[in-house]
């Protein structure tokens, strides 16, 4: 797969060197075994030589591999150093992973579920997680770094070609780990500036639910995903478990707000604890109000 970041070539060189050497060594070892098994077969070679060892050879095949692996280490480190030296002029984007969606936030507050970047400019990623460990992985950029809750990991890249590149979550994070996908869209800088400059206003309606990742677990059409559907939820009476005790509640504004901030406080009956990430850090107050309005409308 062709690399598409400024440092992907360095990584590929290290791959070629390491894997190339490995293949040669493997062929050598395998051929040596086959040749000797044939050449020294008992019927042809009944009289073995009892060679106990050789200090020269032992030294040789300790020292040479040591040098070889040091070169490999160097190659690996050289590419890595570039990956870790974040250029000062890089444009910061905050990447937040949550079960099971990505949201990207730009400096001017613009949010997106896809990572739109200008080709040829440096981009710095602030990697955050609101629940468990996720790992931000873009194979085409040879880029991977974990989003660890409570830590603030960083990474950077510069895309060298316009195009769309897969984003995967590489650290196991639960049921829909393999569906935690997105795209990097690398576009010409001028288009990007335009895109970034257009203030779409605060995300609205169902769009808000997508950006905030709610739709990874809540459907809008009545089907049951990981959590209860949002369709017609407002105003119904349902059973929740509060501290393990079942009680009836009516889904109103206050209840929805609490469900977002402390999902485990009132647990909808039949759903597991600890799955829905608390939304306090990810969803701002006014966005919460907007979400409530959306839910009211979803009949």
């Amino acid at each position, binding site marked *: *797969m062709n690399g598409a970041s400024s*440092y992907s070539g360095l*990584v590929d060189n290290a*791959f070629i060197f*390491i894997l190339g050497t*490995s293949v040669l*060594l*493997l062929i050598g*070892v395998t051929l*040596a*075994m086959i040749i*000797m*098994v044939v050449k*020294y*077969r*008992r019927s042809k*070679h*009944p*009289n*073995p*030589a*009892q*060679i*106990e*060892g*050789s200090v020269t*050879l032992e030294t040789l095949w300790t020292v040479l*591999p*040591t040098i070889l*692996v040091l070169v*490999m*280490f160097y*190659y*690996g480190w050289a*590419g*890595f150093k570039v*990956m870790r030296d974040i250029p000062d002029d890089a444009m910061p984007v905050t990447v937040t992973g949550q079960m099971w969606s990505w949201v990207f936030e730009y400096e001017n507050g613009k949010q997106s579920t896809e990572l739109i970047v200008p080709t040829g400019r440096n981009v710095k990623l602030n990697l955050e997680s609101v629940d468990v*460990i996720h*790992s931000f*992985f873009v194979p*085409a950029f*040879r880029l*991977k*770094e974990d989003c*660890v809750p*409570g*830590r603030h*990991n960083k990474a950077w890249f510069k895309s060298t070609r316009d195009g769309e590149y*897969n984003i*995967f*979550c590489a650290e*196991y994070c*639960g*049921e829909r*780990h*393999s*569906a935690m*996908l997105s795209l990097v869209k690398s576009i010409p800088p001028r288009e990007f500036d335009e895109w970034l400059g257009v203030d779409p206003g605060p995300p609205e309606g169902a769009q808000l639910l997508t950006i905030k990742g709610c739709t990874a677990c809540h459907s809008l059409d009545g089907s049951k995903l990981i959590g209860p559907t949002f369709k017609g939820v407002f105003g119904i009476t349902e059973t929740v478990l509060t501290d393990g005790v079942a009680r009836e509640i009516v889904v109103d504004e206050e209840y929805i707000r609490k469900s977002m901030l402390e999902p485990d406080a009132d647990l909808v009956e039949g759903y*597991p604890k*600890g799955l829905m990430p608390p939304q306090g850090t990810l969803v701002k107050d006014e966005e919460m109000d907007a979400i409530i309005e959306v839910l009211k409308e979803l009949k």
Partner: protein
Amino acid sequence: MADSHGAAYGYTGSYLKTPSNGNLWSWLTTVDHKKIGLMYAAAMFTFFLVGMSLGFLIRLELMEPGTQFISAKVYNSVFTLHGVIMIFLFIVPGIPAILGNFILPLQLGADDVAMPKLNLLSWYIYMVGAIMALVSLFVGGGVPDGGWTFYAPYALKSDTNISLAVMAAFVLGFSSILTGMNFITTIHRLRAPGMGMFGMPLFCWGLYATSWIQVIATPVVGITLVLVTMERWLGIGFFDPALGGDPVLYQHLFWIYSHPVVYVMVLPAMGIISEILPAFSRRTIFGYKAIAMSSMAIAVVGYLVWGHHMFTAGMSDTARWVFSLLTFFVAVPTGVKIFNWLATLYRGSIEFRAPLAYALGWIFLFSIGGLTGLANGALSTDIHIHDTAYVVGHFHYTMFGGAAIGMFAGLHYWWPKIWGRMYNEKIAIGAFAVILVGFNMIYGTMLVLGMKGMPRRYQDYLPEYANLNFIATVGSWILVTGILVMLYNLVRAIKHGKKAPDNPWGSTTLEWKTTSPPPLFNFAEAPTVTTGPYDFTEILREAGVEEGR
């Protein structure tokens, strides 16, 4: 202890034909290291078959993109169970418990391990640990997911019974500690007169290095257990960021134990290969001391490299390069071994029999395992392949190719000694050829998939990965067929095989100097040792060959 040998007990027959042998109770209360070895074999191969079926199911699900047979939720539990069973119940304790128990005292010329009762206790502790592990998987909030690594905070958050699972790992580890101490003591105290440390067969050295790792590394699991328990019950935050803890700390503790344990799995297998090669080349091993000492070197350096599992977790950049550098140093002693084994074939008189086929295949697979590890050790390349199918392929080459195939090689080598029966060698070699094909189809393909970016632990994947996944799944059918035929061939031999001579391969170590199967106390007369472990003078003289230069 000459008086405890054989005749002094009035019973000189095979250990398999003692008067009480027919009843189960006599097995469950035996302190005979040979029977204990076989009891481990019975338990472990049961687990192995379960683990293999789960692996088969994983590949079936991945045959095509989308959901085929099992939902994502079930899939996640299946790969977790597969990992837990294969690693903690089969591969880690496998070779020492089965072949180590059976062979070590015989190779040293002893009548049992140093502490036979403790040895039986270790078996019971293993069984308790295994049952706890299995129970922990099913009580609490249901079958856990999260993989055999159980990373915080995901795995610790869930309702599933993590405390019991870690406790089980510790109990299993405790069993290994006891076995390890037993082996270390046996090696130091019970070598036959005339056998120095450097006069031991190399399998004993492999077990010796492994035992030290077990004794020293396992307590870390205990520490982790205490911390997990304090976090869950007292709410003191160690790992969960919601309580002010750090999830990366969990990864450190996990790998401080689990990385050295990789060598626990592989070192005894290396010992087995070092036995088989001289026997079928009829010549002394090349570089005895280099092989023995590289085992110890691997055991020591192996403690210092755990961080290479965490290159993307957000450790400081300095820590990352230091761990990378150290990791490369472990590669060197492993390479030294491979070169010494090749040199052992050089100008030998080689007979291509079943055990040798397994041993050479082992060298091939393990070389791939070791070499593919280099790209994991180098920083920039590991960033790309970390947590992808590449890593899964790589560790199956080392763990399955290295440890399990090594065990299969050992079983084929010592089977005639253990049961006094030969198996069908043609079937054994044929089955292995099938295994090799299937093996490389699965795990070789995974290496490519990972390079192309397919993450691991994915129940579903993008269409671009479909063809390779299909090949891997077909490979799994071939591999499983090979393994079943191989096992059937071995089991069949127990009853129906031809009678085996005492020394069917023309080997030199002490276990071949007693009968097949050995008598209850191993040797009719306590052996003394006057030559090195791989001295073929006598074998060659019997074969009518003039001794070589």
